[in-house]
């Protein structure tokens, strides 16, 4: 208690951000264990595999990180979209269409014999640009015409999925395969897997850089400040002369761009062909990650690793016992609702801030 006396209200606020995250993680664990016990025929075994399974082998531990990479990308993207108070779900469609366009570009550039790093870099940048362009559509409709961005983005996701399926089947399909996928991507386009025995790829360095860039943009620049102001109180933002329209547009375009980058990195890192015919679910996971991290880019990788751990555990459970892995997704939805409840721990927070302020005042009076 002694340590806390010097804290400002803002510092307590950020402490509570972390506290809420921890509480949410605990709640999610309790929920999932409850679900496992309820569904499984051998509950103790299932719970044990779920919790310790991801750490049992080196490969599974690597899996956690592999899972976390796309979650971090879409999570960072959602941080921007969610910061301005929008709920565009475009990440889902962008993720696959950016990867698909990057794959197309990879084949188009095949003849140039580009060096590995440059090749991958061009593709990732292209994927990001495609993401931005797609994200621009629901954002523009929302900000200029006041069309509900959720409806448009979800409709657009269907459109994109069908369009990709069409182009994949008609033009890009490798006839030697029994399933719908492109030819193998050129070797030099793939991201390097630098740890033997795992599939962890150089995309992890991109993501580390992106986390800090996103943190810097959202928390340390005027643009980020404007975004957060618009998101928290759009009337106040208008009053102080921040153009809500362009700020919201930029935030949603950046968010979609990050999801597109994630899709491209994921494909170049983990796959040898483009093969997603359906929505991958990474966009929805981005919502979970962003909500759990409470829009703070620095907490995003933690939330993503946590989700990666859960997915990995669910995968192991799915393979070794009788429980389907979807229980993690159910938990995700519940946690979003709990964390999104502004009321969660709000009373407790107010009390701590109040007491702290009172103590600070007393201290000042004594000095």
């Amino acid at each position, binding site marked *: 208690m002694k340590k806390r006396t010097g804290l400002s209200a803002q510092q307590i606020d950020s402490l509570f951000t972390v506290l809420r995250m921890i509480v949410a993680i605990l709640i999610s664990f309790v929920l999932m264990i409850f679900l496992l016990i309820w569904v499984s025929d051998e509950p103790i075994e299932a719970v044990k595999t779920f919790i310790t399974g991801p750490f049992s082998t080196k490969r599974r531990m690597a899996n956690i990180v592999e899972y976390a990479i796309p979650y971090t990308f879409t999570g960072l993207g959602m941080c921007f979209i969610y910061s301005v108070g929008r709920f565009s779900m475009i990440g889902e469609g962008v993720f696959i269409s950016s990867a698909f366009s990057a794959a197309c570009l990879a084949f188009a550039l095949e003849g140039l014999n580009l060096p590995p790093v440059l090749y991958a870099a061009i593709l990732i940048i292209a994927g990001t640009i495609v993401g931005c362009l797609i994200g621009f559509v629901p954002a523009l409709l929302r900000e200029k*015409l006041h069309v509900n961005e959720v409806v448009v983005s979800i409709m657009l996701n269907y459109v994109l999925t069908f369009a990709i399926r069409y182009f994949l089947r008609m033009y890009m399909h490798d006839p030697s395969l029994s399933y719908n996928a492109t030819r193998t991507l050129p070797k030099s386009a793939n991201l390097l897997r630098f740890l033997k025995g795992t599939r962890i790829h150089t995309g992890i360095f991109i993501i580390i850089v992106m986390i800090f860039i996103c943190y810097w943009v959202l928390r340390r620049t005027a643009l980020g400040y404007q975004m957060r102001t618009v998101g928290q109180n759009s009337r106040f933002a208008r009053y102080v002369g921040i153009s809500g329209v362009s700020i919201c547009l930029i935030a949603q375009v950046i968010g979609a761009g990050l999801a597109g980058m994630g899709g491209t990195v994921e494909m170049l890192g983990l796959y040898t062909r483009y093969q997603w015919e359906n929505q991958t679910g990474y966009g929805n996971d981005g919502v979970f990650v962003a909500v759990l991290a409470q829009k703070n880019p620095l907490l995003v990788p933690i939330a993503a690793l946590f989700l990666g751990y859960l997915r990995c555990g669910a995968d192991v459970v799915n393979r070794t016992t009788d429980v389907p892995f979807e229980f993690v997704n159910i938990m995700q939805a519940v946690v*979003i609702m709990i964390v999104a409840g502004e009321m969660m721990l709000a009373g407790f927070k107010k009390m701590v801030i109040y007491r702290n302020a009172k103590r600070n005042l007393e201290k000042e009076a004594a000095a």
Partner: protein
Amino acid sequence: MNTISAYLNWAFLPTFLFSIIRMTTPLIYAAMGAIISHKAGFNNLALESMMLTSAFTAVIASAYSQSAFIGLLGGLAGAFFIAAIICLTVLKFKTDLYLTCLSLNMMSSYGTTFCMYVLCKSKITTAWELSSKTLPNIDLPIIKDIPFIGEVLSGHHLLTYMAALFVFLMWFLLYRTRIGLRIRSVGEKPEAAESVGINVNRIKAISFFLSAAFSALGGIYMSMGYVSWFNKDMVAGRGFIGNAANNLSGSEPVGGALYSLMFGVAQAIGNVFVSSSSAAAELILMFPYVVTIIALAISSTIRMRRERQRLGLN
């Protein structure tokens, strides 16, 4: 082109029109669900979740009881469950409505799959084992004997005729009853409604439950009429199309039904041509969603322009 032109003749027309009505039915329910909650000042984006949940619970209830009526009740219960969650979290714990709805959509999509796996003991996308009883199709007594009209209008599902009825009941409810007046006043100016002693939260909850009832009927139609089984994510964005119909019509029941009909036509075109020409199957399946986006964009452009003219900005 040959395959398509084979469908463009008179003998095919009644089948096509019949298919339009079939596709429109769930959209009308979704639109009614969207309208009633929008009138109370909420955009109910969880229609998708309500429809999917009720489609699932209807199949389960009817498969285990072997009774269509129990299935109907089960479907309603499923949607009410979702509505109860929304009311509890949004009205009591003050969560963000959109976020709650989106997470509910996620939850029902994966939750139904999860329950399906657990109940069927295998990982499949369609629960064939749990085949549902269907509600009856109805032949209209006199109309069915009229040559062309009979083929189109008669022999539809019970819920299809009820949908037409509900559009007018909805209008009546909103504009001719006390509860309708209260719902509208809460939506337009909650403070004013509260000042005359209306319990705003209760009215909002009522509108959510009504919305759930409508979307439940839509979901039940999907799994107990349109088909008789449950399929993973079988609602396929119909809830959001309902939201779109609500936006387009400016929350008017009759207009909403007409816009649903428009989307129904788009879906029927998809349904008819997908079986005939598979070359561009995906592009045809994409059509209804493209229509939705374009329609929303156009109507909003018009509305914004009118608004500006009204304010004298142009």
